[in-house]
């Protein structure tokens, strides 16, 4: 009877020893050196998802390059739950003084941790609330989606655009609306069909969603998913054109590619870290709700083979007008699907737009819920 006991102890010991070895081999324990800054980044998905998280990860790499002495801590697949608090506290234990929680759902955990650690500065990506040591930043990516919609509206022959969305949250609805408005600005007959996959990254389902849109006659496809490869591949194979999202994936389908809305976080992250390092966070644009515009953190990707010179010209013109403030896509009257006027007058504030809970007229599909 004692044999299993001994064996058991040995096995448990071996297993734990393995865990310890893993740490010991990979670990660089020299953190916390004098004068060295430690910066933490949290991602909700894998940092190489060819989409949202990879764009943020690329930004963190820019930070690591700009501050060669700084230590950059990474944590991927951090769920949008109290788990994120744990990860942030862990980073603080390792000396982090600046933390970038990069997913919308990391906001509340960040606010909770921030209360406990007033000396740590948190820069949250996409949030609507702030605190003394928590600022939020984002980009008005819907402006780029509007410009991409212009390209789609000109490129479509069927007058039907397809949008593969994840969940019906405000950010997604805002993008769908901007896309349809952009398309309609050049082509009054165009409609956009929205399909929600109720997942941010299930590639096989993305393929089915893309196919269902193309089956219904859509010939230009865009998306709001975390991983973006499959929608582009599937659309291109079926002969549809695409506009991208999150990430410049033009090389995936160079001929089908029109343009795309993409993040360029590097400069913003680097500037924010520099500001905080210099002790200038308080009162800076990062102290509060900062939204970076088209041409800054939000970019149009290079044009692809499907973009004719005419399309390029119109898209660039629209983008230039948005940048100069001349064009405000959500200037009223903007009606919802039911014909009700949602925006009567001038374009609402970014804050209000980020609470969009309706689809504009011309969008086919319903908000489930």
């Amino acid at each position, binding site marked *: 009877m004692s044999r299993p006991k001994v064996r058991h102890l040995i096995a448990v010991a071996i297993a734990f020893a393995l865990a310890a070895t*893993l740490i010991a081999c990979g670990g660089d324990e020299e953190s916390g050196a004098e004068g060295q800054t430690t910066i933490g980044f949290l991602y909700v998905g894998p940092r190489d998802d060819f989409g949202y998280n990879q764009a943020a990860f690329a930004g963190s790499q820019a930070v690591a390059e700009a501050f060669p002495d700084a230590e950059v801590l990474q944590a*991927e697949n951090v769920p949008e739950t109290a788990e994120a608090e744990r990860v942030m506290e862990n980073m603080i234990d390792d000396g982090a003084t600046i933390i970038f929680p990069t997913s919308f759902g990391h906001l509340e955990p960040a606010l909770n941790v921030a209360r406990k650690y007033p000396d740590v500065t948190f820069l949250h990506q996409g949030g609507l609330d702030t605190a003394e040591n928590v600022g939020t930043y984002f980009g008005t990516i819907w402006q780029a989606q509007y410009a991409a919609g212009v390209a789609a509206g000109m490129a479509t022959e069927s007058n039907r655009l397809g949008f593969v969305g994840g969940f*019906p949250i405000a950010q997604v609805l805002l993008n769908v609306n901007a896309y349809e408005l952009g398309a309609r600005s050049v082509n009054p007959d165009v409609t956009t069909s929205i399909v929600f996959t109720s997942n941010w990254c299930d590639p096989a389902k993305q393929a089915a969603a893309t196919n269902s849109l193309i089956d219904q006659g859509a010939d230009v496809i865009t998306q709001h998913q975390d991983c973006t490869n499959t929608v582009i591949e599937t659309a291109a194979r079926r002969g549809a054109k695409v506009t991208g999202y999150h990430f410049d994936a033009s090389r995936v389908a160079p001929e089908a590619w029109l343009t795309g809305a993409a993040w360029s976080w590097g400069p913003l992250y680097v500037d924010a870290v520099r500001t905080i390092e210099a002790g200038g966070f308080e009162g800076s644009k990062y102290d509060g709700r900062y939204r970076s515009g088209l041409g800054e953190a939000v970019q149009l990707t290079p044009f692809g083979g499907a973009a004719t010179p005419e399309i390029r010209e119109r898209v660039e013109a629209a983008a230039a007008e948005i940048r100069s403030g001349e064009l405000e896509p959500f200037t009223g009257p903007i009606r919802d699907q039911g014909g009700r006027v949602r925006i009567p007058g001038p374009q609402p504030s970014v804050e209000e737009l980020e609470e969009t809970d309706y689809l504009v007229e011309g969008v086919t599909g319903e908000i489930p819920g």
Partner: protein
Amino acid sequence: MNALPATGRLTPGALLRPPYARPAAWVFGTLLGLLVVLPALEVSIDQTLIRATPFILTGLAVALPARAGLINVGGEGQLLLGAVGATGVGLALPDTLSPVATLPLLALGGALGGLVWAGIAAGLYVGARTNEVIVTLLLNFVAVSVVAYVVHGPWRDPDSASFPYTADFGAGGTVPLLPGGTAHAGLLVALVAAVGVWLVMGRTRWGFRARVVGGNKEAGRRSGFNVSRTLVIALVAGGALAGLAGAIEVVAVEGRLRPAVAVGFGYIGFLASWLVGHRPLAVVGAGLALAAISVSGDNLQIDAGLPSTTVYILMAVVVMAVLGLRRRAGRQG
């Protein structure tokens, strides 16, 4: 002791027989291992205790029905429905109620949620002779959709700018903490539950009946036991324990219901119970060990720069090392 007879036939008795004669071995082994490894990994003790709570409870949700011969793979879904149940109670209760009244009601809501979810599988098992392994497994997937539905739909926080979570029902601050740390007292609930299951199974008439039925249904029937009722009770009681885990996660850890709550915890609890042959007290040790590994995942990626999924590899290796520990089966042919 031999798990497989000479022919290699996988007999029911062998499959359900605990692999270790003494669960104490597990507990001692685990504590010893934790003592050595936790400081080395700089794993937070508080975090380990917080994480162990759902693992232990979902482990017990497997252990209890297993002693009656039912395999509950549905801890994951029962936990989620427990989270839904507790959230429903939390949203319905007035803010003015004292925590003395609120916390038990939240726990009850969670237990009921898990109980109902397990009840579906139990009812179908008794009524339609469906396989409980598969039904409980499938219901896990359905539970994920139920959570998604309530947080995107009817229970979405009206102040959240359409983001999918429920309102904070403000019970988080009222949860007592374990003395000397920041871990919530949910662990005590798990410990009490473990002792409770142990007492019920070993010291009560019902526990005896359940074990007889688990050993051989026909024997149970011949002894005049109501076999169906025993099985239903065993499974829904397991569901209630998992539901309790969901309530604790929502109330003491999250403060509100979010779609990604406690993903995978139920499956890890399943492993915890199998690791110790469904011995209720030993489940505590297994839950603590798996929690330590789970929490070490952060250190693995933050300190060592390893991908976050490394922790799954680690967990699989540990689990298989222990599962494969049984005496070598008789070889054939």
